[in-house]
């Protein structure tokens, strides 16, 4: 069925189908469409008075066994940061859709950007990892939304679903019949009669879950450094070990939420790397370069953080790498290669507008083949 839709509609429907139960939010451009669609679709919809309240209410719902979602942009996300740290420490499942716009500060609300990935990499005090999954095309608004919610539940963690203005606001023709079926994620609860230890971990490092209103076992949640019983303990070995275990849980299970596209062209020694809104410009550039007889491979990471070893292995096979992203400093390039990139790594950057396939083609021609 052909329809004229936008990414917000796909994302909202996917999250509800995947089992998200409550949307809590405070509107902000360019995330407003997600708010508006959620008001029509989520079983429970609450209008919060601000973004700190949003994240606190979401944490409360999550502690009570519900699956909450919100959508915001940087100014709102900045207010949420401390509370996301809290939800991370409490190991509460939730999805935060971050729709990037031009910063810093209030920047330009109506201009897209890819300027928040470095912030997300360092948003947890201590430098711990939180899953960041991004959209790179229409179908991702469906599948990555589902994957974000499933990851949140399976790993008991907040997950950031990263997107940007044009990805959720531009309307496009789309065949809805091509979408894969989404089934609601299954919630598992601690079922034994034995004493419930709130932060005791299973073989994957994930604590079993019980809602804070259950009648069988005491549940403790705390944002402070705590042992496996949820008791605030300061820097005891047990408490520090628990903190490290939260990070380990995210990192060692990366394969369960590792999403990327790799279009390999064996004749190519150049790899185009891009993500988010710029991914489609890279895809178009690749098609046109191939038509000109210049083969290139294309790598589109969707699980952006934590960065898996696999990405470095993929990229190591190419003598030229061109990374395109809509920010000035080359944020993801710096995360991948450090502040001084190797000489065979090249960047295409812009702010205040989408990167054009022509610019990517030009950069490839400067270096490769």
């Amino acid at each position, binding site marked *: *069925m*052909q*329809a*004229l*839709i936008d990414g917000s*509609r796909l994302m909202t*429907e996917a999250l509800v189908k995947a089992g998200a139960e*409550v949307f*809590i939010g405070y509107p902000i451009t360019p995330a407003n469409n997600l708010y508006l*669609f959620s008001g029509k*679709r989520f*079983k*429970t*919809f*609450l209008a919060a*008075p601000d973004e*700190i*309240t949003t994240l*606190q*209410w*979401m*944490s*409360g*719902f*999550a*502690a*009570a066994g*519900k699956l909450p979602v919100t959508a915001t942009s940087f100014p709102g996300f900045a207010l949420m940061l401390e*509370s996301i740290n*809290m939800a991370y420490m409490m190991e509460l499942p939730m999805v935060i859709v971050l729709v990037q716009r031009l910063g810093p500060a209030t920047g330009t*609300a*109506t201009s897209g950007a890819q300027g928040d990935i470095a912030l997300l990499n360092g948003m947890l005090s201590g430098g711990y990892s939180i899953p960041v999954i991004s959209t790179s095309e229409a179908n991702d608004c469906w599948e990555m939304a589902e994957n974000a919610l499933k990851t949140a539940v399976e790993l008991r963690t907040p997950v950031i679903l990263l997107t940007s203005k*044009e990805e959720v*606001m*531009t*309307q*496009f*023709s789309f065949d*809805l019949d091509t979408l894969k079926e989404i089934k609601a994620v299954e919630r598992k609860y601690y079922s034994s009669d034995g004493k419930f230890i709130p932060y005791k971990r299973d073989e994957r490092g994930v604590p079993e879950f019980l*809602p*804070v*209103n259950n*009648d*069988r076992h*005491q549940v*403790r*949640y*705390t*944002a*402070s450094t705590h042992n496996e019983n949820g*008791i*605030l303990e300061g820097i005891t070995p047990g408490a520090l070990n628990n903190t490290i275990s939260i990070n380990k849980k995210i990192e060692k299970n990366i394969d369960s939420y590792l999403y990327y596209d790799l279009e390999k062209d064996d004749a190519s020694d150049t790899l185009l790397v891009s993500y988010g809104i710029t991914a*489609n*410009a890279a895809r*178009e550039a690749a*098609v046109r370069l191939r038509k000109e007889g210049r083969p290139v491979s294309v790598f589109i990471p969707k699980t952006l953080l934590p960065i898996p070893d696999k990405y470095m292995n993929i990229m190591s096979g190419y003598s030229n790498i061109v990374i395109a992203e809509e920010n000035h400093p080359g944020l993801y390039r710096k995360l991948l290669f450090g502040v001084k990139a190797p000489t065979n790594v090249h960047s295409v950057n812009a702010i205040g*507008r*989408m990167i*054009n*396939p022509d610019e990517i083609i030009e950069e490839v021609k400067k270096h490769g083949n």
Partner: protein
Amino acid sequence: METKFINTDTLPFCSGCGHTTISRNTEKALQKIGLNLLDVILVTDIGCHGIIDKAFDTHTVHGLHGRSVALASGISAGVNNPDKKVIVYIGDGGASIGMQHLLDAAHNGYNMTVVVHNNMLYGMTGGQPSELTPKGFKTPTLPQGATHKGYDICGLVATAGASYVSRITGIGDISDQLAEAFSRTGFSLVEVMEICPSYGVKSNPGIKLKTLIEEAGIEIKVYADNEPKAFETQERNDLPSLFSPSLEIKEEFTHRLDKPVRLFLSGTAGEGVQSAAEMFIRAGMRCGLQGTKKGSYPVTVGVGFSASNLILSPEPIFYTGAPRPDVILVTSEDGIKFARKLIDNAGEEALLIIDSTLETPKTRARVVSHHFREHFGGRNAMITALFEYLRQSNIISMDALKKQFMDSKMAANTKLKALIEETFGI
């Protein structure tokens, strides 16, 4: 009395601290009401009171400074069961930081009882005054004494809509007063007046709590005792999918495109630019084309320019931008200003369709000028400019755009309809 909710004889507070009185009387009050251990969810803020968690065998949640009431609001709404008792322990500092959350919880009527431990200063960080510190009260960081009267938190939450509010002195047996609040549905709050035995006493030697309360004019009383107004979380299970069948756009006409065409529509907000753009894309889809539409307008929405990037293509569209559009349609002065750069950069192969009331800017593009505004009115200028473009280019069937137009609210204007039919021969 045998304790049921508190698991220790040793509470973690300084000798003589009112926090001990509150904790012990909470135990007593809960027993009086006859609640089960796991029917109670204790949410604590940051502050000395917040280290009580491990002494309670109820469910416990310990969050951020000032945010406990917001967190408890989420828990209360998430649990959605007034038989579960959510109790929030918060200090005067936390209540100052999270004042909005308290007002909001009272306003919404979330099921919970907030116990404000008001010892008139922030005890964990060296004793700075809070917004609840009474006038004249000295603290280590304010030895000259507070110059303003503290907020009347009881009056504020009562005004915001709380079911039950009282202020009490934290001395002796306060279990009845706490039980009264705990037994209410909806939002209740008890402010318990205390003096911090470390910082308060040292900064105000010889001070007596009762004298201080009297001299500061702080009223010990019930502020609100209303019919309970309790929040109920709505769960709507019958909401339809966002993929309603009415979204379907069926292919029923033909096109003549063998490569993408990129249009830039630039006009004035409120003059139907976005709806004309959407009609055109839908018309293209009715002809079997792929399409994208990207709107640009100021955040105020209703003033200034309104522009739209459209792409129609026989092939899948990746990049949705159009730095060099094939066709630029301009219907107003706002539109010219916004499209100026694109018009300047347009090449000979580009087409500029412009309203005849506007001065045509210098451009290499081929220019078509028409009386859109004059003949059809400003609000219909863009859709008629698109009809004109189609008459000249034939890229998609004119019938497709006609169908979109006829299905739109614009067609209800019979004069406009007739004029468009006559002008474009449809």
